[in-house]
Structures are given as C-alpha cells and as structure tokens.
C-alpha cells in the first residue's frame, strides 16, 4: 500500500504543471502539451490514490460516522436503530460496571505506561554503547513487542501465571504463596501490567535512535566539568531525548487505553465476566461485551466515543504541558 500512495502522491502534484517538467524535462515540449500531460498525470495520480481513498472512506471515515450516529441510538445489531438522544451517555454514567472498567483501565495505563517507558529507556541506555552481542540483545528485547498483540502470548502468560504454574510454584518456594495469579482479584491486574511492561521493545528501539542523536561532545564537556553519571543523565540525556520521550509517552498512552486482546485472553475465552471480581474488566473489553454479547451496539458506540474523548483530553493535556519539559533543537534561540 505505502509504495503506491507515495508514488501516487508524487503524481498528484502536477496541477500547477511544475513537477510535470521535473518528470519529463523535454526541451521541446509546448506549453499546451505540457498542460495536457499535466492533466493526464493528475488523473493517473488520482487513479493511484483510489485504493487509499476508498480505504479511508469505507474503512475509517464511514464507520466512524456510523458509530457516532449509533451512539445516540438503541441498536441491537438486528432491528433498525432507534434514536434515543443522549440516553446512552446518561446510562453510562449510572452504570457501575462502566465505572469499574474506567478505573481498571486508568490503573493499567497510569501504572503500566511509566513502568514500560522506564524499562525501555533503561535497556536502551544499556544497549546504546557498542558491545559484544549487541545485535542479539537488541532483537531479543524487541521480540516480545513484535508478537505482543498476538493471542498466543496471552495464552502463554496465562499458562505462566495460572494456578500451580511456574510463577506460582517458584514464588511458593520463597514462601510467597499467592496461588493462581490471574484468578486472584488482587493480582490479576498486576499480571496484565507485567505483560505490557515486558513488551517494551518498540519504545526501546525509538529511545535507541534518540540516544544516538545526542552529541558526544556534550558528555565530554560535562565530564570535564566534573558531572557524574546521574548528573549527565539528568542534565544532558533527558532534555536531549525529551522529544523522543514525549513521542513514546503519547504513543504508549494511547495504545494502553485500548488494551483488549491480552486482557481477554488472560481471563480466558469462554468466560463472560471481567476476570475475578471484574478485576480485569478493561474498557475495551466491556465495550466488546456490551456490543457483541449483550447486543447493545448503541451503548458500545457511546462507550467508544467516551474513550475517544478521554484519549483526546489526555493528549491535549500532554501537548499543553510539553512546553514545560520537551526541548526541541529549533526552539533553542
């Protein structure tokens, strides 16, 4: 898809006729011919763009508009939707389980994201300097996030943290007897958070790229001035990679809010509850349960838009605060 769109984008530029000359710099081309050719290129460009346009219209914009409409209706998937105005949103606010799902998700996001970024940054710092086996370690740490969204990892996690499984058994050896972690209302969420923290590979790679950009002279100069490791990290590394940190934070937050697969798989397919005492009832799952099990698609759509509002709010706040702590090279005036 990508190569097509980039090429199409090039081709789509000619309405002004300028890049037409770039594509075919014929010295003898008459202006009229050039215009005709330009139009042809435009047409070809749009033709190349069609798949993408169809994609965004049918698969993104269309469904979003429909979902917005459904949020104001009572829709059970089969009978035609009934307009009920703001009723769904009002019901949401009175729904105990909705509040539970908000709480569970916030805990997951607020604890999981900082831990994940810290882990990613720590390992990136270890792996940024050339050392033996560097390539191996980088790919080894990256691998979990490659397979992270897959169901299989959820199943493995479930097997590891189940009753009488490896974690339970080895912890018992040290006298810490929880039993099955995923069946314990107090430990189920920490298990899920461990899973997301373990998948720190993607932000780690981005951190690595950011760390490489930090000019070595700065460290050398700081070292000359007698700055210790911690001081150098705090005063040079952190500010220099703050745009990367900001980017990672934003991405991971948005991503975490949408947690679904891992929670569902860990609790176990074939159950219709949010884990022990709803302790794993993440937002995405409750939305899914309402939409597809309880056939309340309008309600689920309303939930989706509330989530969108929530994520939008968090993103806006982050963008507002970035002036305070994110340093861009261009800003240094």
């Amino acid at each position: 898809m990508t190569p097509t769109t980039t090429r199409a984008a090039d081709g789509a530029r000619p309405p002004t006729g300028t890049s037409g000359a770039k594509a075919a710099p014929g010295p003898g081309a008459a202006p009229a011919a050039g215009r005709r050719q330009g139009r042809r290129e435009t047409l070809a460009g749009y033709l190349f763009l069609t798949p993408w346009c169809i994609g965004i219209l049918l698969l993104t914009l269309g469904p979003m508009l429909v979902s917005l409409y459904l949020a104001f209706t009572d829709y059970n998937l089969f009978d035609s939707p009934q307009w009920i105005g703001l009723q769904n949103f009002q019901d949401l606010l009175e729904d105990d389980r909705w509040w539970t799902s908000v709480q569970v998700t916030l805990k997951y996001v607020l604890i999981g994201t900082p831990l994940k970024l810290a882990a990613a940054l720590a390992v990136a710092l270890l792996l940024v300097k050339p050392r033996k086996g560097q390539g191996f370690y980088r790919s080894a740490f990256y691998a979990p996030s490659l397979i992270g969204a897959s169901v299989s990892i959820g199943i493995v996690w479930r097997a590891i943290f189940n009753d009488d499984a490896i974690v339970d058994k080895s912890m018992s050896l040290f006298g810490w007897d929880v039993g099955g972690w995923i069946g314990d209302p107090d430990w189920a969420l920490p298990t899920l958070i461990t899973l997301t923290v373990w998948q720190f590979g993607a932000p780690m790679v981005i951190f690595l790229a950011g760390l490489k950009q930090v000019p070595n002279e700065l460290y050398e100069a700081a070292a000359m001035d007698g700055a210790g490791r911690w001081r150098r990290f705090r005063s040079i590394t952190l500010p220099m990679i703050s745009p990367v940190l900001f980017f990672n934070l934003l991405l991971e937050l948005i991503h975490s809010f949408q947690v679904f697969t891992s929670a569902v798989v860990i609790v176990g397919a074939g159950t219709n509850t949010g884990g022990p005492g709803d302790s794993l009832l993440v937002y995405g799952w409750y939305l899914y349960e309402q939409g597809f099990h309880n056939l309340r698609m309008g309600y689920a759509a309303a939930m989706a838009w509330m989530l969108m509002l929530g994520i939008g709010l968090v993103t806006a706040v982050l963008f507002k605060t970035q002036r305070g702590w994110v340093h861009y090279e261009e800003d240094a005036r």
Partner: protein
Amino acid sequence: MGARRWTARARGFRAAAAAVAALGLLATGCGGGSGSGDGKVTIRYSWWGAKDRAELIQKTVELFEKEHPNITVKTDFSEYTDFWSKFNTQAAGGNAPDVFQNSYAFLRKYGDKNLLLDLNGQAKAGNLSLKGFRDGLEKAGDIDGKLLGVPVGANTFALFYNPDAFKKAGVTVEDGWTWDDFFAAAKKVRKSDGTLYGASDNANVMYLYDLYMRQNGKAFFTKDDKLGFTKDDLTRWWSLWRQHAKADELVPGKKSEQAKPKASISADLSAAEFTWDNFLVRFAAETKTTLDLGPIPTTDGKRTGQYLSSLMLSGSARTQHPKEVAQFIDFMTHDPEVGKIMGYNRGIPATTAQYDAYKPQGVDAKIAAYEKSVSAELEPITPHPAGADVAEAAFLRIYTQVALGQTSMDKAVDQFFDEAESALGS
C-alpha cells in the same frame, strides 16, 4: 521524443487501471463463489465446543457428505462465548451460518429477531422427520408454534460427588434428601478430609437456583418474560450458601477463581458440585478422581424440579438452501451411525434410533444410568426469554463478587435485579 513520453504516461495509466481492476477482482473474489451451477450446494455449519467434539463432528460430516454427494458442508467452531459473539457479528451482517448448534436458552433471543428458520415447513415437505424423538423432545424447539430448533442431545442437572470422600465421611447420597441433608454432608466431608472442601460454592449457578425455585413452586423466569422470584427469595438462597461458606465448608471464592478454567471439583478442591450431567465426560478427562452422579437435594423430600434441556441444531432464516439444511439436521438427529460416533458428547441422543445405536461405556454408562433414574421426575423446562443469557452471566458474576468479599449481599441482590430486569426488558 514526444511519442516516447506519451507511451511512458500511457504505461503509468495502464498500471493504475490495472491496480484498480485488481482491487475490484479482489472484492468479488471475497464476496461471491458460494453457489455454483452444477447442482452442488455448500452449506456452512458452525458449533461451539472443543477439539474432542471437532474430531467427532468431522466424522459425522464426512458421513453426511458421502450420503448426499451434492451437498458440501463447511464446518466452523469456537468456544462457547466466542461462538456467540462471532455468530452475532455474522448474523448482523446477514451472513449467519446456514445451520448451527443452538440451545434452548437462545431460541427466543434469536427467534424474536427472526433469525431462525421455521423448520415446520421443511418437516411438512418431508425433508425432516420429527418422529422417533425421546420423551417428547420433538417439541423442545417449538416456540409459539414455530419450530426453531431440533434437539440432537438432551441432558439434565445433577449432583457430582466424590464417592470415596463421602464414604470416608460416613454419608450416603440418597433420593429425596433435602438441602439441609446436603449441607450437613458437606460439613461432614470437610471435617473428615483435611484437603477437600465439602462442596463447591454453587450459589451463582442460575440453573441450580432455578431448580430450587421450582421446588418452591416458582421458577427463574416466568412465561411473560420476567424474573419469577423476589429479592427476598434470592437473598435467602445466596445467604444460605454464604453461611456455609463462612463456616469453611465450601470452596472459597478466590480458590475457585484461581482453579479456572477447571471446575472446583475437577481441580480436586471440593467433594461435590452441581452441573449438567454430560460434564462428567469433561471432568473424567480433567481429574483422576472417580466421580459419581447423585440426586439433586429437595425442599420437601420429594420434588427435584428437574427437566431435560437440550442442545439443538437450528437453521438460519436467511439461508439460500433450507431444504439441504433440513436434510442435514434430519441426518444428524436420526442416523444411527452419527449416534454411534457422537456418543454422549452433546448429551444423551435425542432420538431413539441414535440412543439405541450407541452402547454407552465407562462414564457414558454412568450418565445413562443417572438419566434413567431421574426420568420419572422430569417436568417441563422453565421458559427462557430473550436476555436470559445476560441474566445468567450477571447472576454468576455478581454472586462471585459476594464470595470474593467485594460487595455486600443487599447491594449484590439489588444489582442483579437491575441488570437482569434491564436485559429482559430490552
């Protein structure tokens, strides 16, 4: 020179056109292709269950295809709740499977939305026989005069118990015993056995509570789609179990959650548990402990309130091939070979032809003996309104939260009534 430029443009043009055309081809490739002209028909058959059932079903489908060379059956399966979310999605898109496994609890839910094929017409046309069903089961799928499902197997509720533990505790399980007797037995087992709890905490099982209500002249649901009991009734039932759980006689909520996906009894935590009798097949695979089936405790020493529930096959109202669907259901319910292959995997076969063809052995023999022993007590089934499945899930979840100590009894009962009433109302 100009010509060369033109051909270059033209090539670009053609490439673009080809890309669009390819996209179009892709789209038709996905959509069409099910019906073909040579009289061969493909029907989709989906069901819930696990691998063991998959192997058996594949064998029966091959048998069907051999006898009906013009029909191809594509099968598709998933776990129970996944099955329904997938089904809902497909059905909403107008693409439900032609024929699928169904159960009594869902007949009204989907029947009300006109998703299920009324098989009466096919029966009249002679494509589906309604003769030879056991115990009036041919009426099991009859909802307001429409035949929305045909049972393939039937089962009833039972007490599962560990005979060794009961023997050691010196208690005997006997017909007509009361709930007091049952809890007294659980207490004795707990005292005599240091590791086992007397029973699993089954207060959250809708079907068991239904039996208890029926023993008291009520039922979980009424005929006019409402809850058939009061908040006081439910508080009494849940408190009864809580009281024994607090006395350390029943498996604690946390432990049974941790044992999942195993049941407490098959995880060797408890000596007694209530569920459908055909679960014996599954439990036998999960635990080495021998388990027996015993009678449901009663309120008055007589009536257990039991009934047969059944797993069914239903057709989609939008199927293009109702005749073939009916033929398939007919074959699956009547063919003796199919009965031999499936055994009691989906409960005891619903037709006498299949029932007689299969000679039960091992755990299947136990199930057969149990059903024979209760057959005189069987009554008509409690109606299941649309939304019954949501009410069941709420019943299970909310009492589990009580057992985990997350909520108070009063709050839990209120919450159940809220959720169930709104599910039944919609």
